[in-house]
């Protein structure tokens, strides 16, 4: 049996190198087809009538006028009269028509009456939440009261970050069509190609085996596209009502922002107790958040640092808003912002360099303490931290103040279940088939690199097929689980196939299969590399039937593991007269075990930093308390960074023996956790006061500057008034 391990560093031809993503040219030339681009013959366009009210009961629905309109092929009531609607934008009725304008006209012709009910859509003020607030269990470790009594410095602060949305550039949606009344073909924008059939088959009453699912490319998911949505089921139902014709429902931008996923907010009043030398001894937090009408989980507090004496209490607030979905590292950015801000405020109160302060307490970070230490040293070099850091409040002349901040984070990222078929044809061509998806992260490239590495072939010799549920199942792309899963299944499958090839080839070279290796397009004898066959010649020994193997994860050998640490530092400039924050530079130093493709790994971090700048400075779902509606369901007031807003991004990936030995670990989540905290800390360092809540908009920055010593507040160095 093959030995399942990664090649030694000196033997790697592709793994760990910077390889450009294989689908890059198709994407930048517009040839890549996303679900949104799919146009099927005779396709109908589905549109959805949505509730204008945040909380209401449907009294009546009259679709008669819509049904009579020429060009309207199907009308489907999604939620019947009597149903309680719990957020604005929820789906009430859908129509399918020959074109979009006709479908929109039909939607306007539908009459729905509602009985309005009281709603709650904002949660920053815990005291106003009333019965919608549901306290979760309190947690205590050590002896917090005693520890606070022994603390030489106690810093109190309020910190928070609002609900943001996933804002996928390709909105959610799908195209469904029936072949007969038992077989469905679905093109869908999804993070889980292998899971769609089961999810959509059940509500439609057909076996999962009868559902074919396809997706070539996806324009962003970030955790919001794991599940088949109600509108996807509706598209299939409309299709059936219309005689099986394809029906396309892709969300409009406003619906995408209102109903297709949110990251829960987090607000917290925090108290930190420390010794004068910087030792953190006590933590207390009272936190709250909303995840919409359902739960939003709770942020891990304190984050990463296991403070020995702590008391935490969390309250979940149900609001009449769209539901929470996993957002890249669920609840970690929230826990990170609250914790790292509170700790940085503590360092500032102690007049300690936060880098020294974090390092002094780094043992509290547990398993990755040494990784963080090593990473901080590299980050500090890249940021010239010791040269550029100053005590809180830049003393430079002029209105623009510069400051530095830092943060750290952790994540699991163990590989998911994954299966693939590997085929070596007698003519030497190679196929890998897997029911996975490339979330835009470079999954295609990574799978091809692993296969090509095993076979000693160039990347383009591998024909890879993914994005179709007729291929062996592979897990959902989420939680940073894909790279560990697909690289391991591919490695095992290709090693098995190679072993079979060696068995076919060995007799002709008069050696044992174990004496062979695949290098640089040849199958050759390890001890005498001149003896061998070209890949093509070798494959001619296969005979008439191709070699086929099934690669699996989990499986034998240690090819992946989980758990990473990363650190980030930010350099910002703040105009203290306008409150405008500019990010000058962000440094990210990240561990993710053995790196398959260094280039796409770095890209993953760049993308996370950009997303981090967005939520640190701009992103915020703004709800109107009175009407219960989202005020900014568009790209003009739901603000994202443009090129000029991002600043210089410096990424350093940890590599080397100790990292390689842990095998492949996922990278999707970790680098997006710290930017909010690092940037917020940098702003506090620049202007001398904490801006309590993200995003760091001019109004928030100016408010913090104008009232640095509000009643009950703390001094300029560290902490801020917990005033809401």
């Amino acid at each position, binding site marked *: 049996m093959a030995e399942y391990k990664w090649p030694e560093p000196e033997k790697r031809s592709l793994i760990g190198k910077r390889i450009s993503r294989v689908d890059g040219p198709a994407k930048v030339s517009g040839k890549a087809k996303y679900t949104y681009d799919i146009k099927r013959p005779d396709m109908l366009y589905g549109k959805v009538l949505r509730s204008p009210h945040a909380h209401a009961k449907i009294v009546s629905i009259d679709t008669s006028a819509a049904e009579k309109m020429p060009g309207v092929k199907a009308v489907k009531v999604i939620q019947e009269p009597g149903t309680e609607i719990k957020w604005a934008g929820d789906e009430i009725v859908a129509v399918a028509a020959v074109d979009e*304008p006709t479908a929109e006209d039909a939607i306007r012709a539908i009459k729905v009456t509602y009985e309005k009910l009281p709603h709650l859509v904002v949660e920053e003020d815990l005291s106003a939440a009333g019965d919608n607030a549901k306290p979760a269990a309190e947690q205590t470790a050590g002896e917090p009261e005693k520890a606070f009594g022994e603390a030489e410095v106690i810093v109190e602060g309020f910190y928070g970050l609002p609900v943001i949305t996933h804002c996928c550039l390709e909105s959610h949606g799908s195209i469904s069509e029936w072949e007969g009344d038992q077989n469905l073909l679905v093109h869908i924008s999804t993070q889980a190609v292998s899971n769609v059939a089961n999810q959509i088959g059940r509500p439609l009453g057909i076996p999962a085996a009868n559902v074919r699912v396809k997706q070539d490319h996806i324009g962003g998911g970030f955790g919001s596209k794991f599940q088949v949505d109600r509108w996807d089921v509706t598209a299939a139902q409309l299709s059936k009502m219309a005689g099986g014709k394809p029906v396309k429902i892709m969300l409009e931008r406003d619906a995408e922002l209102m109903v297709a996923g949110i990251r829960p907010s987090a607000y917290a009043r925090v108290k930190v107790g420390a010794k004068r030398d910087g030792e953190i001894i006590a933590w207390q937090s009272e936190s709250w958040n909303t995840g919409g009408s359902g739960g939003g989980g709770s942020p891990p507090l304190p984050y990463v640092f296991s403070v020995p004496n702590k008391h935490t209490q969390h309250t979940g607030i149900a609001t009449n808003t769209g539901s929470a979905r996993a957002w890249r590292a669920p609840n970690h950015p929230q826990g990170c912002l609250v914790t790292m801000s509170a700790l940085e405020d503590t360092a500032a109160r102690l007049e300690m360099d936060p880098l020294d302060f974090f390092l002094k307490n780094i043992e509290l970070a547990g398993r990755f303490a040494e990784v963080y230490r090593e990473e901080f040293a590299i980050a500090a070099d890249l940021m010239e931290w010791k040269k550029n850091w100053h005590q809180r409040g830049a003393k430079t002349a002029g209105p623009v103040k510069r400051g530095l901040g830092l943060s750290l984070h952790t994540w699991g990222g163990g590989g998911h279940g994954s299966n693939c078929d590997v085929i070596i044809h007698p003519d030497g061509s190679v196929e890998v088939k897997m029911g996975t998806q490339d979330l835009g992260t470079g999954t295609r490239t990574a799978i091809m690199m692993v296969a090509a590495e095993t076979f000693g072939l160039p990347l383009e010799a591998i024909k890879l097929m993914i994005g179709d549920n007729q291929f062996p199942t592979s897990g959902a792309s989420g939680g940073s689980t894909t790279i560990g899963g697909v690289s391991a299944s591919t490695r095992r499958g290709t090693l098995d196939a190679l072993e079979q090839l060696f068995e076919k080839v060995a007799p002709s070279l008069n050696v044992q299969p174990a004496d062979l290796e695949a290098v640089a397009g040849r199958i050759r004898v390890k001890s005498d590399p001149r003896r061998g066959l070209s890949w093509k010649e070798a494959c001619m020994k296969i005979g008439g039937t191709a070699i086929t193997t099934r690669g699996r994860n989990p499986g034998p050998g240690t090819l992946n593991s989980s758990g990473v640490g990363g650190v980030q530092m930010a350099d910002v400039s703040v105009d203290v007269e306008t409150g405008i924050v500019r990010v000058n530079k962000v440094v990210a130093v990240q561990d993710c075990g053995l790196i398959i493709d260094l280039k796409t790994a770095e890209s993953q971090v760049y993308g996370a930093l950009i997303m981090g700048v967005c939520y640190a400075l701009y992103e915020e779902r703004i709800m109107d*308390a009175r009407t219960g509606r989202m*005020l*900014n369901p568009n790209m003009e*007031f739901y603000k994202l*960074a443009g*090129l000029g807003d991002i600043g210089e991004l410096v990424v350093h990936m940890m590599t080397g023996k100790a990292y390689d030995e842990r095998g492949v670990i996922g990278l999707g989540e970790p680098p997006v956790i710290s930017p909010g905290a690092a940037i917020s800390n940098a702003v506090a360092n620049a202007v001398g006061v904490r801006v309590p809540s993200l995003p760091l908009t*001019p109004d928030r920055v100016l408010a913090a500057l104008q009232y640095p010593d509000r009643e009950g507040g703390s001094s300029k160095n560290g902490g801020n008034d917990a005033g809401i």
Partner: protein
Amino acid sequence: MRAFEYASPTTKEQAVSLLGNSWDEAEVLAGGTDLLSLMKDGCVAPKRLVNIKEIRELRGISAGGGGLRIGALATIQELLDNRAVSRAYPAITQAAEGITSPQIRSLGTIGGELCQRPRCWYYRAGYGLLATDEQGEPLVPSGDNRYHAILGNAGPAYFVHASSLAPALIALGAKVRLFGPDGVREMWLDQFFTTPLTADDRETALKPNEIVTEIIVPTALGVKSATYEVRQREALDWPLATASVALSMSGDRVRVARIVMGHVAPRPWRAAEAEQVLAEKAVTEEVAQKAGELALNGANSLSRNGYKIQLARVAVKRAILMAARGGRG
């Protein structure tokens, strides 16, 4: 978007004859960068669109001894590319530079930029120009008004005028020419802008059957001008406050100053008190600061837009200092 009739006249006479006597009859289409989104969002639903892009005489920018003529169809990009404009009227160029979308610069016209509708999120969500609930109660004062007016905001209008160019053009003493069934009308651009009193009013003096044909800016000899925009993002973003300043100089001293703020009121807002404090003075940091304070003297914040008063103050101060330096930042 609702179905509509489409007309594409080649003369302004034809265009005017195709327009209606009330706003719901017809809308004028030029660059379409605002109109199309208004129609998609259901804020306007004209029965007819009158495309004026084929009327050649509305195009072009020309600078001569008598000043500057900007055709209503000149694009923002054409304005940015015009050297005569950037040399003599830096306030205009700087205002146009704040519109950072290449798409809007290429398609958007000057006439459209001046006639664009408010970005108030209640208006755009279908609560009407004056943003009222079903009972007619205003939503803005007690709602989320972080981007709303801090001047001229006693109601019923609380939105801010969205034009970036108007403050610069007004500061430079521009006039606007309109054409309607009765021929040409000309007025100070300052007087072109009005504050609506009902939801059916518009934000300009334009009648439903008139079109903007051109902007005339007087010669800027001896005038130093600048625009300072406070905008959160480098990427396309609405300004939070802007100020355009034109200083007629006599040596080192300001003879006459004109200061106009944008994105602070339902119309471009002239800061008369601040203008007076600059007269007969050399521009210093202190004078500029004082002018900034005076410019916001009458400001009144709503529940969450107090920060905009500070931003407008800074915009006025910085625009004055920039203008005094010859339009440089």
